[in-house]
């Protein structure tokens, strides 16, 4: 009896190894993604469903994606994740392949704001779709529900003298210029004219009077919140930051400003050197399933493009981050603002 079980076991293991070897021999789909975008259980399910093996490589920064894709002229990966601000650079360098939406049945069931991809700035060029929105988060406003009443709707609350010395702002010129431009009602916060730039600068110098400190990391903001009288936090880290604060018992809530909140949006993209475009499109479609997208939000706290999440209500106005007109100029002006008395 025991011997039989043992033999069966050995046979099973042998069969397993054989299967693994065969799936490795067939060309696997090569995926480059951020941690959390291709969890092991999803990969396993995808392979079980489609019979396509998957090799995932995780990356840690935008520069790293560029280095890997540009370095091999798109030959080393089939499908990868990149944000809207970055995507145009890849299109210009001819490193990506247009995607056939008819191969993505799940795309029709995405949330309204993502359904018509031509309306998502940065994802298309010359009528061709290059990026499929997958994961996003807004950069909104965290407010202390005990101290800020009634609930704010606009970032202009940051300038309210009632909260002097109780505002935590983020130490980054680029984003601060963009959100202030939105608050001032400018249409394109990423391309400011010289006049607009000067107006935004003056407005930010004014903001300084209300600010307790500028933070850089989420846990830094959290520590300052705990040891000081903070009412409002400009939330560069969005939902992650809200959840961390709620976990330590802070009475905080989150809004996306009515003038439009800045938000980053990651997309699935197919590389120029894709070996099996069909397989790559199957992967993207699988990622857009309710199950995977829902799980993504549950696990990471980021918003997904299929199921409603706390990153943004269906009526919230989001402005996808884009490259700014002159990063060096913004950084210089930001130093001037910080040095201003």
């Amino acid at each position, binding site marked *: 009896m025991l011997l039989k079980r043992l033999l069966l076991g050995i046979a099973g293991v042998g069969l397993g190894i054989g299967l693994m070897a065969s799936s490795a021999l067939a060309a696997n789909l090569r995926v480059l993604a951020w941690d959390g975008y291709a969890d092991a259980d999803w990969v396993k399910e995808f392979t079980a469903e489609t019979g396509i093996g998957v090799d995932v490589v995780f990356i840690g920064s935008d520069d790293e994606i560029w280095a890997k894709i540009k370095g091999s002229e798109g030959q080393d990966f089939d499908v990868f994740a990149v944000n809207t601000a970055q995507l145009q650079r890849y299109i210009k360098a001819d490193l990506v392949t247009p995607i056939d939406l008819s191969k993505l049945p799940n795309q029709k069931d995405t949330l309204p704001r993502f359904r018509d991809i031509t309306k998502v700035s940065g994802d298309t060029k010359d009528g061709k779709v290059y990026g499929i929105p997958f994961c996003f988060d807004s950069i909104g406003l965290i407010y202390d529900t005990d101290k800020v009443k009634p609930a704010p709707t606009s970032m202009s609350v940051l300038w309210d003298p009632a909260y002097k010395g109780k505002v935590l702002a983020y130490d980054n010129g680029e984003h601060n210029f963009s959100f202030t431009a939105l608050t001032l009602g400018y249409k394109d916060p990423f391309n400011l004219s010289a006049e607009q730039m000067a107006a935004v600068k003056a407005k930010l110098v004014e903001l300084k009077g209300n600010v*307790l400190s500028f933070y850089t990391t989420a846990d830094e903001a959290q520590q300052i919140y705990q040891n*000081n009288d903070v009412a409002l936090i400009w939330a560069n880290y969005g939902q992650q930051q809200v959840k961390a604060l709620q976990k330590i018992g802070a009475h905080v809530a989150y809004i996306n400003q009515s003038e439009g909140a800045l938000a980053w949006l990651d997309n699935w993209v197919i590389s120029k050197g894709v070996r099996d475009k069909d397989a790559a499109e199957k992967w993207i479609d699988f990622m857009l399933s309710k199950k995977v997208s829902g799980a993504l939000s549950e696990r990471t706290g980021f918003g997904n493009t299929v199921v409603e999440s706390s990153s943004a209500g269906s009526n919230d106005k989001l402005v996808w981050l884009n490259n700014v007109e002159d990063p060096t100029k913004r950084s210089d002006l930001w130093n001037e603002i910080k040095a201003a008395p």
Partner: protein
Amino acid sequence: MKSAGLARPVAIRWSPLVTALAFALPVVFVLVPLAIFLVYSFFSVDQGQIVYVPTLANYLRFFTDPVFLPVFWRTIVLCLSVAVISILLAYPTAYFLTTLRGRWRYALLMLLMVPLLMSYVIKIYAIRSILGLNGFLNKALVGLGILAEPSTLFVFNMNAILLTLTLLLIPFAILPIFLALERIPQVLLRASDDLGASSLQTFLRITLPLSMPGVASAASFVFVLAIGDFLTPQMVGGISGFTFGRILYSQFGTAYNWPFGAALSVALAVVVIVAILLGERFGRNRGASL
């Protein structure tokens, strides 16, 4: 005899190599990087790309732009204050240590050096939770009835940087002063006593002048370490505590303007070199007269 005779040619054969290495290491790892830095400060940036054409624009900008010089001077004053306060606190401490006998002296000295074993960032975080508006310091002062309500005097401003840097750097002031004090020959003090000097006279005429080299090196140590720091101002400086280190740091991170950052570093390096030279000059002068 024979073996010594054999060893010598080997030593001679190897010694030029050792000499070359001794010179090459500092050249390769110190001088060359510094030279590259200096060269970079004469380049410029256009649309995020470094332009390798020599220009004086970076230095011109440093001297003419109304942003940089005020922050530069303010930072120097801040770091001088840190050095002065550190010495005022470290001198009595070091003096007290030298009055101790035997193993207590070194045990206590080691205890004062223990904070140096701790991560810098952790120390800043700890200090920040002490200084906050609801931090330990304010809570204690309010609890003891000294303050009616929490004070913002040490919350995210220049004072906070001053206090934090002093706290972080004080071990670097204690050590050289302690060593200078310890080197003073006891016979001099006893002779002074025998000749009828009061202990205050002995301290002012003998101990203090002879310990000045230690004070000078302590001051230059603390000043140099303080002026190179950007993390402390970043983390406790808030909106008013904007220092030169923070500007410099931003040139490498968000601005991608390495040439200008290099030029700013050169300006800082000049100050640091002057501080070190001054420290050494005063340190050696007094020491030589011993």
